[in-house]
């Protein structure tokens, strides 16, 4: 379908992981869609380049679930944009997902690196 110009885009995030990353990005301050995309990209050293086609559905999905809420504001460059911010509900969800993520990644590491245990998990 769409031409594949950003191979790393194709890294398929685990189901729900993008939602968690978005929530994580919004932890400290409200941000607009573009900003969120850039933050994830910068925060992952350009590893994740979130497609617009994935980002916006995710944002709207989170908003619909009541984990984030939105508000129109003017950006630093005088650009009107829609800012998303975490709700209390969203904060709880993030904590929950974060701990689950930790458990899961530890479990996966153990499975993937059976020889060198404990010490190696950074």
């Amino acid at each position, binding site marked *: 379908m769409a031409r594949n110009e950003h191979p790393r885009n194709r890294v398929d995030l685990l189901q729900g992981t993008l939602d968690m990353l978005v929530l994580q990005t919004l932890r400290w301050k409200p941000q607009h869609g*573009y900003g969120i995309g850039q933050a994830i990209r910068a925060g992952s050293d350009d590893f994740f380049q979130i497609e*617009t086609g994935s980002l*916006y559905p995710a944002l709207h999905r989170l908003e619909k679930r009541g984990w984030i809420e939105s508000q129109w504001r003017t950006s630093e460059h005088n*650009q009107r944009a*829609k800012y998303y911010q975490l709700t209390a509900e969203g904060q709880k969800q993030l904590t929950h997902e974060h701990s689950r993520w930790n458990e899961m990644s530890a479990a996966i590491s153990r499975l993937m690196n059976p020889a060198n245990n404990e010490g190696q998990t950074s």
Partner: protein
Amino acid sequence: MRWPWFSREPREQEFDEEIQAHFAMAVRDRIERGESPEAAEQAARREFGNRTRIHEITREVWRWNWLDRIWQDVRYGLRMMRRAPAFTAVAVLSLALGIGANTAIFSLINTLMLRLLPVREPEQLVELLHQFPNEPRLNADFDAYLHLRDNNQVLSGLIAASRPHSSQVSVEDSETESIDAQYISGSYFEVLGVQPAIGRLIGPADDSETADPVAVVSWSYWQSRFNLDPAIVGTQIRFRDSPVTIVGVTQPEFFGIPPPALAQIWVPLSTDVLIGGAATSHGMAMIGRLKPGVSLDQAKAELSTLYFQTFDQAKLKTDYYLSRLKFDLEPARASPTLLRDRFARPLLFVMAVVGLLLLIACTNVASMLLARGAAREREMALRVALGAGKIRLLRQMLTESLLLSTAGTLIGAGLAYFGAGALVRIIASGRMIGLPRALEIPVEPDSRVLLFTTGVALLTGVLFGLVPALRAMSAAPASSLRAAGKGVETRFGRLFGNSLVVSQVALSVLLLSAAGLFLHHLSNLRDGLGFEQNNLLLLRLDPEGSGYEAEELSNASRQLLDRLETIPGVRSAAFSGMTPISGAGWSQHVNVEGYQDKPGERRYLSLNAVSPGYFETYGTPLLAGRNFTFQDYGGPRVAVINQTMARFYFGDGNPIGKRFTIEGDEEPYDIVGVAGDAKYIDPQEPTLKTIYLPRLRGSNFTLRTDAAPAAIVGEVRRAVSDVLKGVKIDRVTTMADQVDAAMVPERLTALLSVVFGALGSLLAAIGLYGLLAYTVARRSNEIGIRMALGATRGDATRMILWDALRMVAAGLVLGIPIALWSKRFAASVMEDLPIGNPAPIALGATAMVVVALLAAYLPARRAASVDPIVALRHE
């Protein structure tokens, strides 16, 4: 929660703005990083990906259910329909005709055959019938009623009810009027479980000769005659000249059983006994309620045994006919068995016909959709290229076809409502075998009809929409985008389109030949009556209560006959005991001298008492011997017989001077003349062996008129009141109406098959036209090239006509064998169909060729007028 479709537009706008902002920020970032504005924008756009798709997926997030998605498809579909109004109109109309016809016929079947009786647990009710070999089933003999009722272990109740019978009623001192009365056994309402609207209903205690005479009236009579006045309870009226008290009124939906008996008043059978047993002679239906847990077969076995106990046991063994009599039990949960027997087959035929019609309509719309689908291929390819999911496209296409079928259904239901009304009027103009009264049938759409129509609509929508939808789904964007508009068409598309038209032609041939067959059958019946049915006025008197003695009446009848013949416009007048095709007859056992009956031979012969003018008036020829003269009346016993009887008893010999006796009367009759054959009770039956006797008994007059009989009705009424004072006129009608009433199923089948056959070929013509028009449009390049290379306009025309004829020919090759086979099938179900005649099929085939050429004319003209220069430049 917000309702998405209320907030749809603002949300869309908001999202647009959000995306726009995103895009602006992305470009800005790139410029800040040092890219040129153009390069930045291009890169951002590329990065952005498919905007519509993003839009769609994001919107999907807010969709709160499937209804919403469907709504969007529907709106899009409606827009497509508006954009092609001609296409939409033709498609919707085709479907409306098909679906309307099916709904109308089904609601008729529903009413006549499926609808339940408005009584308690109708599925327990059974009707008691019996059947002699080769005869229709009839009501079981009422003489067995008491024996059956009192001795059976399988029924919780057995009731008897007369056919509704016109009776004179007067309320207070007002003029008498005729209303339909049903004579019922005392337990009638109790066994049926019917409740009164007011007052009480007739109970077993009322059905006794010592009880006070009572009556119950219907809601509709209460409404029309008493304005729903509750004081009706206790009112005394005169019923056939004796006083009865109205004790109650039935619920509005109860009209009496077995339907379509529309009784207005119910009286106990004991009343009938008091007034001379007139009603029971009109036939009694017996209906039982099975005990819970008793099966139909069980009940049938026991009741059959009981039934035959009531017959003369010796005769039961020796009499050819009686020994072959079968007792039968029929569930009475729906409509009356006798009515169903009469109408079931014709209606099922018509149902098959309308089913075919719907199939034609579907093929039609499918081929139109397919042609349009080819035109829309570019659109589809574009949508796929823009990221529309395939399932999404399929859903969209199916939504569009379902929209078409829904619109068709709405219009069709309207058509059906009026259509069914008209059909019911035709049926209501008829009479049942052995019942000389008209029927009334209330047809109302109920849940079953609704369900049927909805089902048909869905089925048709999917049926004609699926293939075009699948085609659209498989549209390959690249090749389609390149090819669209350049007249390339897949082999599959062309073959499929052609085969749709071919099957339409085949189905139309089938319908047209069925129409021809049924028309031919109808005209055979009319021609085979044996008398001239037009310009005959029938007059029936009701001498009951007039005070005339039989002798007196006979003399007065002769005076009236003379008087009627003097009315201007009357060519001749006749008197008879029976009029032909009235549904009733007079038959007796006859012994012909010198003829030895073979065992099992039916000696029941039909008789009629006639005046000398009878044969002239009816236009039935005298083939040998002489007519009656008035000297024969009361003189030595003479008779005229019909040809069938003469041939049966005397072969080629001369019947004049031969003698016969009527059983129960040893004095013989001399045969003095032979008349031509004529149908007696029903047009459908074979000609009966008939004897005409010179007697002035009965009360039927027939007038042969010069012009339309209606014009002289006033004169006739005046003559009756002058000559026979105090004698009421029971009925004035025309023979044409009486014949029509006896041929309702045949008329109905013929009418409907002609109408639907014509509609079917019209639809096929539209289909063919559409395909050819499309072909010409598509091939105009090719035609242009051919013309540039020297082909003439005639060649182009011929090419298109040849296309049309090829498809028709293929349709005929397919359709004619099916028609031939169906004819044989039809004949196996319906007797006496004139299937030997090849004319209907030939006619249907010819009609299709003509229709096809007409449909091909315009496209062919258009092909001929293709301008090579324009066509080539277009390339």
